[in-house]
């Protein structure tokens, strides 16, 4: 073991991060809100709330609804727009020694291109996560992510305009997520992250109206973990680029499942709402596991899943 502990550094597509734990877009704001609760410099990276070209107000409330072991959200990608992000949100984050990956959203390929250009020019952004998968908006978003050709086009156009590592965030609301993953890899994606939320809904039976003003929303939380894990496993077998696993990870055991089936890193989202220190608890838990199993480097654990279960 190096120094006192196992090596936790991983490469997520040209961006080398100190450990495999990142925050998921939309669950951590732009970092500021969580500073009183944990040392954010310990994180592998922060993925910001989605940034669009123009500011967005987001959806009419109610925007969230709890479901068994989960939450439906229809936030509507509320954000102050890329100019305000660069001017107001980024400077705050730059004071911490944690890489900032900006999550990018667009309604048209042109939007993606413009935001990519602006972020690539600004100091403090070390990677881009391209959201082609948000199911909450009526145009753009899920359209890109459910069509291999559109996903390919966005990836290609974004890659042309930036030297930053480009992570494509995939939607699970498709027939075969592996097709999309292969397509964006072919287009030059440096990594893929999956899954985004699953489209769902909830009904108020007394008033016979939806619980969400938007009617449908994205489901996240422990309830989706088995689906996310299965998709990460399948995609990791199909592509060579790093796969970042997202979906219902609440503790180190959950994170380790994703690493074992092939995720190079994990993102923690909904768990932040129930434990502000979920990310740092998970970093500690992964380290403890590696020590216990005498594994010197986390990369030696990644993808060691024995799917035929022979090793006993």
């Amino acid at each position, binding site marked *: 073991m190096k120094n006192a502990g196992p090596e936790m550094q991983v490469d997520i597509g040209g961006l080398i991060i100190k450990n495999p734990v990142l925050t998921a877009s939309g669950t951590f704001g732009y970092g500021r809100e969580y500073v009183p609760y944990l040392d954010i410099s310990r994180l592998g990276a922060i993925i910001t709330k989605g940034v669009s070209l123009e500011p967005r107000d987001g959806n009419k409330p109610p925007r969230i609804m709890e479901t068994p072991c989960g939450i439906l959200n229809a936030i509507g990608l509320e954000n102050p727009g890329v100019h305000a992000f660069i001017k107001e949100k980024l400077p705050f984050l730059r004071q911490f020694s944690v890489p900032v990956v900006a999550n990018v959203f667009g309604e048209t390929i042109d939007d993606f291109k413009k935001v990519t250009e602006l972020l690539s020019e600004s100091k403090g952004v070390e990677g881009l996560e391209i959201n082609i998968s948000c199911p909450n908006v009526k145009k753009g978003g899920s359209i890109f992510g459910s069509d291999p050709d559109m996903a390919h086009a966005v990836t290609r156009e974004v890659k042309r305009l930036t030297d930053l590592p480009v992570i494509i965030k995939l939607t699970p609301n498709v027939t075969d997520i592996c097709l999309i993953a292969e397509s964006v890899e072919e287009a030059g994606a440096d990594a893929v992250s999956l899954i985004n939320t699953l489209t769902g809904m909830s009904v108020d039976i007394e008033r016979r109206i939806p619980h969400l003003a938007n009617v449908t929303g994205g489901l996240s939380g422990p309830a989706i973990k088995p689906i996310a894990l299965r998709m990460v496993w399948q995609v990791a077998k199909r592509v060579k680029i790093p796969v970042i696993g997202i979906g219902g990870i609440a503790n180190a055991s959950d994170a380790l499942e994703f690493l074992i089936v092939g995720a190079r890193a994990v993102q923690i989202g909904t768990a932040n709402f*129930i434990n502000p220190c979920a990310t740092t608890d998970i970093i500690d838990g992964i380290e403890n596991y590696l020590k216990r199993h005498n594994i010197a480097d986390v990369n030696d654990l990644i993808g060691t899943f024995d799917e035929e279960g022979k090793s006993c």
Partner: protein
Amino acid sequence: MNGKIVKNEQISTGHFLLGVKLPESFKTPMPGQFIMTREPGRIDPLLGRPFGVYVFESSHDEVTVEILYKVVGKGTLLLSRLTEGNFIEVLGPYGRAFDIYPEAGKVIFVCGGIGVAPITYLASHYRRLADARDIELICYYGASKAENLVGIEKLKKICSHVFISTDDGSHGFHGLITERFSADISSYDPGSSKIYACGPRSMLKQLSELLAENPASCQILMEERMACGVGACLGCMVLLKDGEGRGGYARVCTEGPVFNIGDINWG
């Protein structure tokens, strides 16, 4: 922070009083702020539940927080089944607190239903000020029926006047508390009176109409479904009138839960 339940008593149909002992380092909530509770280790229900603070007491090595709550769904039902000795996670205090006016001549509280709980905490804060200064504390408290009225004795110890109403007339004035309040409204000088309110959205909306001439004199507590409680997820939004700042929406957990009554777009 992990706390230990010291009491969880039913005080009326569907209404409970929960007391939790916490380490001394738990920050003292200011009136208007809220806490979130969760059962350690439970992932269903997933989210913490937000509650206004009812009572907060410190001794030299620990503090006790009390919340007065109504069983309205899965989270509060399970909370009502916890007993003395059980552990419970308490997060917070969160949110913007009420502005306090030590120079006020009269302070009027208007509460509906379980809104009486955080208003009582505010009132007891003013009671300590009123003992040293000449501030009159008056409370208007309404509920749908008599069995939903809770904590009246405590209110009577804090306020010089407590006016009660019930929708069905089973106790006090027969009608809405806003109707009872509107009968007295002309006797309150907006220059020296401050009003605070917490209750159902319909009550707050009616109050905003009553106070349309002088909205600056009134602060309210808003409520919305919450996930993170700290301002990160943007789930708990309320629509503002002005459209300033966040493009029209404000976070009940961060810009609120206290708002000036005139700022809300009631729709």
